[in-house]
């Protein structure tokens, strides 16, 4: 099979580059496919799969040889590589197009999955080229492929998830280049009829990227390669913020679950997204009446089933039971230990669990308030099972735990919606009712660290901080921590000035 494959691949590359091959190589293919069947390659799926894999390996070997030739210009090397790779991609596309009858999408998609490369070596070029050219060709205007476009997008998303940077770090740069390619973004996010599924697939790829970067970003350990990937990630997120803000809105919870707490700007960028149909009032408007904004009571779309993330199930049951009956009181005193993972500083708490508990309790509180035809306000949110839990966490958790708890709340301060409104009121209520200045200081820290980084800043964050420093109710400027050091005082005053 190896000799046959080598002979056939060589013959196909020759045919592909002949002027008579025709624009889509269909003329060349009709004669070549007979050769393939003469050599028995098309007899079984298994043979076709082995043929694809051998071709891929031959293409990769050829690229390796070209890439390792001394004193070769990169242009020359790429010309040699593309000469064969592009021909091979076209052969895959034509075999797909003509495999089975056009309605039998299963054959095509199975074949496509089989055609994928099973292993990834270090040098990204051949694989990068095969992937992106295959994607572009399979998404060119073609009736047959249009009919199976969602399956094609699914196949590519699956394989790119399998080849995510944590699994194939040598492929990471090419991987980010592929998922941010204008054709890939266009098909996944702009044109697919099945927007929801394709968006979910794309969101998963962004999560894969954050998961890979997280350990390095968390340690702020940014050697040049990581910086390069981080900066590239910021560019891609900016494109998504500008063109598809609803994607960042819908999946903000999932993204914030995997972004390290110290990655302030990335998180701010995601939380700053708001639906394009919405007009945000200037957060600096004097006497802005947030509760009168048209969308303020509308729940945001959160595509993650965060309540289901509350594990073990018993915790969810006990939590819901407390929310309903405000008993047993022991639930409150046990809660902290159920959120704790270890005693290792910096890794004590189950962050995803804490995030899901906070958002679940908040959502239940909003539903409870709205069931009484009220809107969140200091009086409406106080003295409730929901607020018991939040106040208990504010008091019972240590500095690390409270930082994560407050982060989980501030992550909901986004564009005008019921979550932003409720959590803004709750944070300010916790500040006003705090029994120690440490809690008030930490609330200030969590807000401040998000305000002092480069833009963008989420609308809900600005509105909340402005209320905190302006309203006499919180006596903000009287607290010792505001004057604890000249530079802190200056910083707060400069932030206050820019806010006011």
């Amino acid at each position, binding site marked *: 099979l190896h000799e046959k494959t080598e002979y056939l691949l060589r013959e196909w590359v020759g045919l592909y580059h002949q002027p008579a091959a025709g624009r889509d190589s269909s003329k060349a293919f009709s004669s070549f496919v007979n050769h393939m069947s003469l050599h028995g390659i098309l007899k079984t799926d298994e043979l076709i799969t082995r043929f694809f894999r051998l071709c891929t390996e031959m293409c990769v070997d050829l690229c390796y040889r070209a890439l390792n030739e001394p004193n070769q210009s990169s242009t020359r090397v790429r010309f040699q590589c593309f000469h064969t790779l592009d021909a091979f991609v076209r052969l895959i596309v034509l075999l797909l197009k003509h495999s089975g009858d056009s309605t039998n999408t299963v054959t095509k998609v199975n074949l496509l999955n089989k055609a994928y490369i099973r292993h990834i070596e270090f040098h*990204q070029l051949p694989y990068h080229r095969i992937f992106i050219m295959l994607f572009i060709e399979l998404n060119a205007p073609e009736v047959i492929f249009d009919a199976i476009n969602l399956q094609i997008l699914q196949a590519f998303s699956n394989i790119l998830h399998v080849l995510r940077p944590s699994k194939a770090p*040598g492929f990471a*740069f090419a991987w980010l280049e592929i998922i941010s390619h204008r054709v890939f973004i266009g098909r996944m996010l702009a044109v697919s009829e099945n927007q929801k599924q394709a968006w979910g697939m794309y969101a998963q790829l962004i999560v894969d990227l954050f998961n890979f970067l997280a350990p390095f970003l968390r340690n702020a350990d940014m050697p040049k390669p990581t910086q390069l990937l981080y900066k590239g990630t910021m560019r891609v997120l900016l494109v998504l913020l500008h063109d598809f803000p609803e994607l960042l809105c819908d999946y903000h919870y999932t993204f914030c679950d995997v972004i390290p707490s110290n990655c302030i700007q990335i998180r701010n960028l995601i939380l700053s997204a708001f639906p394009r149909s919405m007009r945000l009032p200037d957060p600096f408007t004097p006497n802005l009446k947030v509760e009168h904004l048209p969308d303020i009571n509308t729940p945001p779309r959160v595509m993650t089933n965060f309540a289901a993330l509350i594990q073990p199930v018993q915790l969810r049951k006990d939590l819901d039971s407390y929310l309903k009956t405000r008993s047993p009181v022991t639930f409150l005193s046990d809660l902290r230990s159920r959120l704790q993972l270890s005693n290792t500083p910096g890794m004590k708490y189950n962050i995803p669990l804490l995030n899901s508990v906070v958002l679940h309790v908040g959502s239940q509180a909003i539903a409870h308030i709205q069931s009484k035809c009220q809107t969140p306000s200091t009086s409406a949110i106080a003295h409730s099972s929901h607020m018991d839990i939040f106040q208990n966490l504010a008091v019972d958790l240590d500095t690390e735990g409270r930082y994560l708890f407050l982060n989980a709340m501030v992550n909901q301060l986004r564009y005008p919606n019921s979550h932003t409104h409720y959590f803004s009121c709750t944070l300010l209520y916790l500040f006003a009712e705090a029994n120690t200045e440490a809690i008030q200081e930490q609330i200030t820290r969590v807000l401040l660290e998000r305000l002092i980084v480069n833009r963008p800043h989420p609308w809900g964050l600005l509105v909340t901080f402005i209320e905190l420093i302006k309203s006499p109710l919180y006596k903000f400027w009287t607290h010792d921590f505001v004057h604890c050091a000249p530079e802190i005082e200056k910083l707060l005053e400069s932030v206050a000035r820019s806010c006011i």
Partner: protein
Amino acid sequence: PLGPVPLTPEHEFQLAMLERASRRMPMLNDSEKFREYLPNNSCPTKLYPQQLIPPLQAPDFFSKLEPETLFFVFYFMEGTKAQYLAAKALKLKSWRFHTKYLMWFQRHEEPRAITEEFEQGTYIFFDYERWGQRKKENFKFEYKYLE
């Protein structure tokens, strides 16, 4: 207050692989169809100011270009958006693409004859082989070759 977390051996490996991959970054034309002419190769030049030139995408940018420039774009940037925009701009300047001669023609004067199938008269055409505009008298432009 979370502070750093020591990297696991797996993360160290990933960092090493990432570092090696960063020495072979993808190049711009790795993600583009093969270009016969003018491939998107980055070549080291002096640090000329790389400011964003006016929005190149805007079709009216092309309508300001001279026909010679548009012909260059049309023949040397084949299969790209630039070629498409150049063709649109040429049509706006009353050039017509002849799909048999693959050249652009423009009436030099009102045709002497116009029928259902063709028009005949004196034309200017851009000869890409000699790279220049030339006059063609008594030329029959069959409409079946009009793009």
